[in-house]
């Protein structure tokens, strides 16, 4: 761990007094927003599933889960944070460490990030910098090391900036997925990060531990998929609720999360049999794709969609902060160390639909994901969500729109910032879009 007084590469000098004041103020706002978001979710679905209560609790950043991780750390466990989904969490679990995703969704923290990087930079990156500057995010603070996967430009530099405080391990991600040299590079990166995890934790990752970590995650994937499957039919759960369940996986205890998600699915299945719906079954079915949306502040778009007049319901997404988290299992043929590591490498690289990849066919994996969702989940319209500065998703819009236009699926490009002030303008657009979806039926 670096000495605070040591000269920093990026972070400005800031007095402890200012840090404390800013943290306390933003933390107070954040607690209010967490409570408010949950209240609004309860209001939208008055008969919200009882099993959601657990996830509401885990959604509190400054609550039970923080205390749990803190206690585990006191008992010698290590915490390993990551920003991008490519970090192989099975290896972290196999070394008896705790994986947590640390991307920031705090709007107010992004303003602090402006002290370090220009406003043109992606607000999620700026906000994560701001959060670190004042020690706002419990999970970022508890991280003993961070895995920084070099995906987009913002993420590449974010790791470098955060290394002013915390050891950062980079993983070089090939931008082309399926060449032999890409696969070779990526499998070397997996091995290297395994070595770093082992060195930090002092635990050698052995066959038995890795097998059980993979099996644990596979079970989580099964529960996760079960929840998404339930969203194929008439809306039995609001999109925000499902999104919150998906997202709590990023910092919850995986075994418990799996049990609670299965319990939620049991409850939902019962409701399907009783035909109890979260909103009218003819509510326009919407999917979102693009930049990740991070709890608690950046809940703006799903809230707008599900509280709009006319109302929409989010039944699927293609976001690395929600459905892409766990959708793809690690597929192992032989439980040898070599095969398991290969399977992990492949799952993280090949299954990803991130816009950081390029290929001659124009990120076909992402297009296929979208088309499959549209067909199977009966999507009526797609909101293409981008925060300013998110260059890769912004650029890929043209590609996605071309394909969806051909299929006669309406898609709307909704761009925003980490701010609450543009909600009025965004509401106008989202409502016009939903009105358009209903108008296709009748005006």
């Amino acid at each position, binding site marked *: 761990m670096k000495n605070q007084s040591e000269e920093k590469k990026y972070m400005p000098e800031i007095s402890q007094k200012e840090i404390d004041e800013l943290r306390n103020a933003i933390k107070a706002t954040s607690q209010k927003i967490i409570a408010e978001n949950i209240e609004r979710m309860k209001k939208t679905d008055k008969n919200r599933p009882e099993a959601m209560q657990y996830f509401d609790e885990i959604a509190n950043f400054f609550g039970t889960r923080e205390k749990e991780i803190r206690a585990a750390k006191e008992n010698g466990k290590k915490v390993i944070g990551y920003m991008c989904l490519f970090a192989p969490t099975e290896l972290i679990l196999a070394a008896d460490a705790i994986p947590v995703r640390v991307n920031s969704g705090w709007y107010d923290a992004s303003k602090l990030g402006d002290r370090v990087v220009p406003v043109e930079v992606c607000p999620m990156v700026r906000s994560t910098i701001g959060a670190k500057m004042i020690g706002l995010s419990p999970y970022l603070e508890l991280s003993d090391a961070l895995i920084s996967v070099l995906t987009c430009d913002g993420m590449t530099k974010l790791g470098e900036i955060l290394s002013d405080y915390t050891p950062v391990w980079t993983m070089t991600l090939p931008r082309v997925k399926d060449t032999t040299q890409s696969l070779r590079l990526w499998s070397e990166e997996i091995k290297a990060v395994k070595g770093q995890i082992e060195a930090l934790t002092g635990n050698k990752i052995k066959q038995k531990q890795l097998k059980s970590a993979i099996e644990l995650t596979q079970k989580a994937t099964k529960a996760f998929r079960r929840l998404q499957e339930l969203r194929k039919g008439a809306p039995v759960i609001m999109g925000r609720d499902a999104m919150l369940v998906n997202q709590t996986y990023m910092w919850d205890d995986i075994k418990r999360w799996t049990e609670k998600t299965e319990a939620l699915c049991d409850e939902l299945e019962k409701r399907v049999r009783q035909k109890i719906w979260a909103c009218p079954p003819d509510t326009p079915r919407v999917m979102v794709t693009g930049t990740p949306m991070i709890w608690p502040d950046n809940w703006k778009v799903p809230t707008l969609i599900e509280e709009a007049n006319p109302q929409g319901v989010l039944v699927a997404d293609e976001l690395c902060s929600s459905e892409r988290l766990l959708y793809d299992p690690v597929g192992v043929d032989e439980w040898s160390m070599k095969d398991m590591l290969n399977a992990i490498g492949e799952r993280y690289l090949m299954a990803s639909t991130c816009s950081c990849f390029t290929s001659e066919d124009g990120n076909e994996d992402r297009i296929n994901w979208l088309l499959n969702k549209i067909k199977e989940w009966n999507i009526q319209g797609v909101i293409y969500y981008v925060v300013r500065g998110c260059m890769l998703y912004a650029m890929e819009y043209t590609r996605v729109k071309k394909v969806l236009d051909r299929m006669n699926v309406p898609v709307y490009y909704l*761009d925003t910032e980490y701010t609450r002030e543009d909600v*009025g*303008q965004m509401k*106008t657009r989202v409502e*016009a879009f939903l009105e*358009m979806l209903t*108008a*296709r039926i009748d*005006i």
Partner: protein
Amino acid sequence: MITAGIDLGTQSVKAVILKDGEVISRGKSFSGFDPTKAAEQAVDEALKKAKLSLSDVDHVTATGSGMDMAPHSNSTISMMGADAKAGVYLFPKARTIIDVGAEEARAVKCDDKGIMVDFVVNERCAAGAGAFIEAMARALEVTIEEMGPLSLKAERASSINATCVIFGESDVVTLIHRQETKPEIARAIFDAMADRVSSMVYRLGVNPDVVLVGGVAKDVGFVASLKRKLGVDVLIPEYPEYAGALGAALVAVNRVKKA
């Protein structure tokens, strides 16, 4: 059947009264600080012209950025939905409706029934909208009405890079320092606006007929630039600034029929 449409815009409120689907009167007022009161004024004016009272109206539909503040309204319709309705009513072959107002520009793609199928909005910047002309007229020390005719006198094209009103203004100052003529600068300003609006339209696809509505459609300078940039004819109705209110009033007709 009497219906009314109210368009609560950022700068002005417009009202249109229809009798059996035909326009019988219009009213307008400045939005100011109390949009609800402004809307009442616009509706009163239109009712007075039509010799009607509010109780004669079967259904009022509101639109525009302030539609939630509309008085007497029975329902609402998005600005894009209203544009599409009005565009196809005014020009049955219209499939692309461009609306350039004071603070916002948008383009709507619609079908033969006037139902929108796609739309784009000028993203959070007034450089493609009427407020830009206002700011630039100030820089050139002419009135906003003089800008259009002035630009038509330009003998050659120069250019500014209008990504925002503020930067646009400093670009104009650069041209002034280069001693470009006022007509040329005025044309450069409209070209820059038309660039922004047309690139937005290109994202939707230029499907004829193309109709231009909104207050800025009355500006001959902007219209000339937009036609050049799009390379197609652009149709303009007699009362372009009332298109939103007209669309809302037409939607009100359908809503009465459905009820």
